[in-house]
């Protein structure tokens, strides 16, 4: 996993509430057995005017000119500004894979859906919750200033605007540690293999019916 420390990046908008994971990456792309290559199909139904198919070359498809990510000013964005309950719906990790593959490393919204929020951290993406009023203001600043960038400082846990204003954000310490160091969760958990085996031994004795064979 890619480590995340300090990111200075162009900001793009996803200006509606309750953006679900079906909208982030429609189901036909979930048929892939790989975890990369989803970027061209991020927000597929909003970005293109036709219906996308897996494996298709997207470069010749008709694009929806009204959709901000298709506007020249947002090309190369790495910070996505969003509204309430971003990432609701299905648990598909293809959603963060698509965001990451497209180039987003940081998401800022007033709230995120639980499973999606958690999935972001596993993929080197930092989801940041800021107060709805602040997010609203950032939307305004971004729309007003072409080339609007934010600096996202994970070690300091703050987002800084071009004018130097700093906004603090919360992030749970363990997730921060993993993200800062690009650590693989599984390796960390396996450091506790003995504790897991101890627990399992006790639990098996107490609830042997949970350990029956499925054959």
């Amino acid at each position, binding site marked *: 996993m890619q480590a995340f420390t300090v990111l200075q990046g162009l900001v793009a908008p996803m200006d509606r509430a309750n953006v679900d994971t079906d909208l982030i990456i*429609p189901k036909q792309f979930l048929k892939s057995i790989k975890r990369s290559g989803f970027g061209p199909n991020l927000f597929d139904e909003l970005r293109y005017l036709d219906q996308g198919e897996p494996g298709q070359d997207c470069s010749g498809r008709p694009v929806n000119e009204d959709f901000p990510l298709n506007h020249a000013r947002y090309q190369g964005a790495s910070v996505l500004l969003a509204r309430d309950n971003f990432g609701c719906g299905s*648990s598909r990790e293809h959603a963060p894979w698509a965001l990451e593959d497209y180039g987003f490393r940081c998401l800022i919204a007033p709230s995120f859906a639980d*499973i999606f929020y*958690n999935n972001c951290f596993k993929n080197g993406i930092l989801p940041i919750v800021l107060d709805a009023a602040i997010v609203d203001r950032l939307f305004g600043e971004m729309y007003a200033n072409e080339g609007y960038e934010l600096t996202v400082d994970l070690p300091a846990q703050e987002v800084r605007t071009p004018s130097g204003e700093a906004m603090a954000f919360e992030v*749970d*310490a*363990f997730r921060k540690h993993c993200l800062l160091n690009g650590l693989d969760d*599984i390796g960390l*958990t*396996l450091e506790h293999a003995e504790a897991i085996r101890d627990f399992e031994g006790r639990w098996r004795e107490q609830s042997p019916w949970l350990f029956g064979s499925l054959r």
Partner: protein
Amino acid sequence: MSGQTLYDKLWQSHLVLERDDGSALIYIDRQLIHEVTSPQAFEGLRLSGRRPWRTEANLAVPDHNVPTVKDERDGGIDGIVDPVSRLQVRTLDDNCKDFDIVEFEINDRRQGIVHVVGPEQGATLPGMTIVCGDSHTSTHGALGALAHGIGTSEVEHVLATQCLVQQKMKNMLVRVDGKLQPGVTAKDVVLAIIGEIGTAGGTGYAIEFGGEVIGDLSMEGRMTVCNMAIEAGARAGMIAVDQKTIDYVEGRTYAPKGEQWERAVAAWRELHSDADAVFDRVVALKGEDIKPQVTWGTSPEMVLPVDGNVPDPANAASAAERDAISRALQYMGLSAGQAITDIKLDKVFIGSCTNSRIEDLRAAAAVVKGKRVAGSVKLAMVVPGSGAVKEQAEAEGLHEVFTAAGLEWREPGCSMCLAMNSDKLGAGEHCASTSNRNFEGRQGFGGRTHLVSPQMAAAAAIAGHFVDVRDW
């Protein structure tokens, strides 16, 4: 000290260790696996040279991609027409063989939607922690289990370590008191709950459903309610164990037997919130007030009683709400103030992990018996949740009731719930669906989904538009 909630008890009993920062390792008793969210997890194991921690904790079944048309299905994996779907189902088979995981293969009679199969086979038991790379894993909480959806990285994590890194959630109690009116079902209850608290209302919480109405529901109905906890934003929904739970589990293939059964039942009887348990939030609804529900928009919270009218953006409380309503009306092709009963249907889908169990099919069959699907409805289909449900329904002759009425009777799978196989809506088509998500494009590009109960879907198929099933 106050007592514990059901969630507290399940959490506490599976706690391997807690870190100082509040994150914890939780032991997982059962992982259910399907073809869509597992290939990358198995690939990860392979790349790191790891093996599953406890193979026997895992049970796999293909469901999302499998064809539901008999001819295509009869050919097994080789018969799947779409090469991308075929590869994904085959990859599941290959991975299960490589890692020695039990799989109900595509044409095994036990195959079905993963959330129907688990409880049906007794692979889901009270008191378990259950995960699956699928958000509707909350379904299994109906048996007094802690069950939630996870992402693919976590699927790999559970395969490799039998644990999940978790933060404890907050406790919410949703109590539905009183009695339901005839014709009002578990689906209407949960849609009404989502209408009340919103699709993000349960974010950060584990929801326990309680009250007389929930107690009166069958196990199938309880699964319908817990299934949609995630549509209220809660990763986990659960219901206390009672005699109904125990009776449901008894005798199932993987349920404990003999002396172990007695011990298990004694332990399961403790799986309820203590009388003095404290919840962070309590929401109460009255059963009598709940009418049959229909979603009119593109989020499950955009729901109304069948005798309602779709909202007018002009009356919205805020600019954001006005935008959301306008966008949804436009996508759904509805006009402000239109009566729900004036919505005409092109297709009807009875199925999905929300409503494809035997009781759902019985209820739908009772509505259509001796009648005919309206000529304006292009397709009405019934997709049983599993091979076992299909067998049972056929033994009761339900399939004949459906086909005589003009509904198609299909092979088990997820089908048009998410349209990964060839069962889809065309652009602009309205569908009465017993599934759980009405997001844009969910059932097909440009498709318009209305979530309802099996009875309401069945009645809509006959009438060609929504009708109040209480008058049926």
